[in-house]
């Protein structure tokens, strides 16, 4: 149980693929211009990650070490193809607006990184959980960055949500404020770099404050801890 919890913390915060490992930046920076695009790609990546982690973990004992990377890439590519065909069939508008970035999920280092670092060494169940948590962490960052950029760039949230969720979702569109002129830089790639920089800075600030809060208690623990080691 504690292992599941630590995997949850690793994936969503301490070892977040986007904020700490800085993997998969290409789709992260390219498609987060709106919440809808970000969520679409985030969910697609999450599904591929779960599927590939599971499969890699199942076959891990039969794959020779020397050719493991090509095998992993084939497995990932198979899942990406499945996701791509699904999106083509059910969310065609989103499929068009994400464009090349759906097939490019194959090259997302966050996915092959988890296959290599975790799934090839752990049981299928744990690997699925790890894939789910890493994918969740990645999708969350995509979502937050997409929300920031959409809000600053055009003053809305969930613009075009019907592309992802079906026609009912067009009511989700929120117009927070309306500009006469769009703040284009937030929607253009430089805005993604600036936004990600601010997110990473915010995470570091939070970590530093948590550490500062935890520091005094660590010193209190220090006293009895010496005795515990003596007992051992």
């Amino acid at each position: 149980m504690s292992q599941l919890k630590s995997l949850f913390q690793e994936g969503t915060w301490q070892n977040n693929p986007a904020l700490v490992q800085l993997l998969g930046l290409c789709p992260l920076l390219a498609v987060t211009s709106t919440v809808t695009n970000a969520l679409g790609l985030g969910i697609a990546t999450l599904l591929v990650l779960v599927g590939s982690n599971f499969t890699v973990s199942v076959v891990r004992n039969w794959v020779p070490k020397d050719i493991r990377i090509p095998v992993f890439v084939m497995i990932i590519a198979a899942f990406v193809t499945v996701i791509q065909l699904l999106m083509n069939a059910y969310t065609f508008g989103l499929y068009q607006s994400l464009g090349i970035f759906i097939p490019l999920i194959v090259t997302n280092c966050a996915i092959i990184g988890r296959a290599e670092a975790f799934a090839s060494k752990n049981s299928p169940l744990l690997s699925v959980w790890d894939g789910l948590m890493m994918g969740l962490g990645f999708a969350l960052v995509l979502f937050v960055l997409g929300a920031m950029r959409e809000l600053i760039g055009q003053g809305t949230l969930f613009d075009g949500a019907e592309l992802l969720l079906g026609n009912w979702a067009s009511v989700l569109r929120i117009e927070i404020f309306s500009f006469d002129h769009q703040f284009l830089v937030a929607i253009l790639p430089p805005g993604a770099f600036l936004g990600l920089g601010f997110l990473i800075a915010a995470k570091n600030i939070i970590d530093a404050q948590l550490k500062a809060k935890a520091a005094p208690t660590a010193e209190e623990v220090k006293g009895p801890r010496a005795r515990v080691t003596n007992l051992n």
Partner: protein
Amino acid sequence: MKLTMASSPHNHSHKSVNKIMMTVMAACIPGILVQTYYFGFGVLIQLALALITASLAEALVLKLRGRAIWPSLSDGSAWLTAVLLAISIPPLAPWWITVIGAFFAIAIVKQLYGGLGFNLFNPAMAAYVLLLISFPVQMTSWSPIQALTLESLSFVDQLAMIFTESTSQGVTLDVWRAGVIDGATGATPLDSVKTAVSQGLTVNEAMSKQGFGALAGLGWQYVNLAFLLGGLYLLKAKVINWHIPVAFIASLGLASAIGYIIAPESEPGTLFHLLSGGAMLGAFFIATDPVSASTTNLGRLIYGAAIGFTVYVIRQFGGYPDAVAFAVVIMNMAVPLIDHYTQPRTYGHGAKS
């Protein structure tokens, strides 16, 4: 008598940061006056807006960083950034353009990198690029020079146009820009030459319209000459070295001369390039920023020449009419590399045996 031991360098030029910044700002004055004469009081209003915003942004970030506010603010570097940015912005652009630009320049480009001396990019030009790609319409809506307009705007009208986007009579910038003397447009000389050439006209046809003077664009030629004057004063006062401006001008001049020889009908010529847009301002005031420019003499020559060449390439083949800001920001990125390969040999080290 007390003899003190000081560490080297023993010979001191007695130039404080504040003094240098103030000298550069003083050297901007002729250019600002000429620009105000041709384009109206909007120039001064933008200047005031930029100065106020930059000071507030600098104070705010210094406070957030837990630094003393006055020592850094009073060195004048933020004010110089504000001045350079305000000069580059169209005089009747809406107020929020200048406010966003000045805030971005100081808070993000300068202070987030660590403040004066640590910024990788020239703050004024990085902010200008941000504004240009974010608000292309407002940032390219230069007002026509005053001599060409049918009705001139009073100071109050210009103030109203900057803050409310129309005068008290409801004249907006677009309407006013359309009301110029027959044949001239509100486009800058660089812009109208570029548009005309892309429509298949020759440069001579483009420049026979109203709005062009003997040397380059009417008004613009004198603005550039005024900045040249200020730049020469900076050279004389030894605030800047000759390397960057000379390399910049030589490279832009050479590139445009070669272009003129190859294709005289689509190429406005060397003098036009040197006296249009931000060429002189860029050569003497912007490219010479001591923080973001190269620091070795050979490096300065390479840096200036590369900026001049990039300006020419973007002006002639790129999508934007002027390119000083882009060229400076691009070459700022190359400065660490240039500096690495142009280190002068120190005595006793690195000689080839």
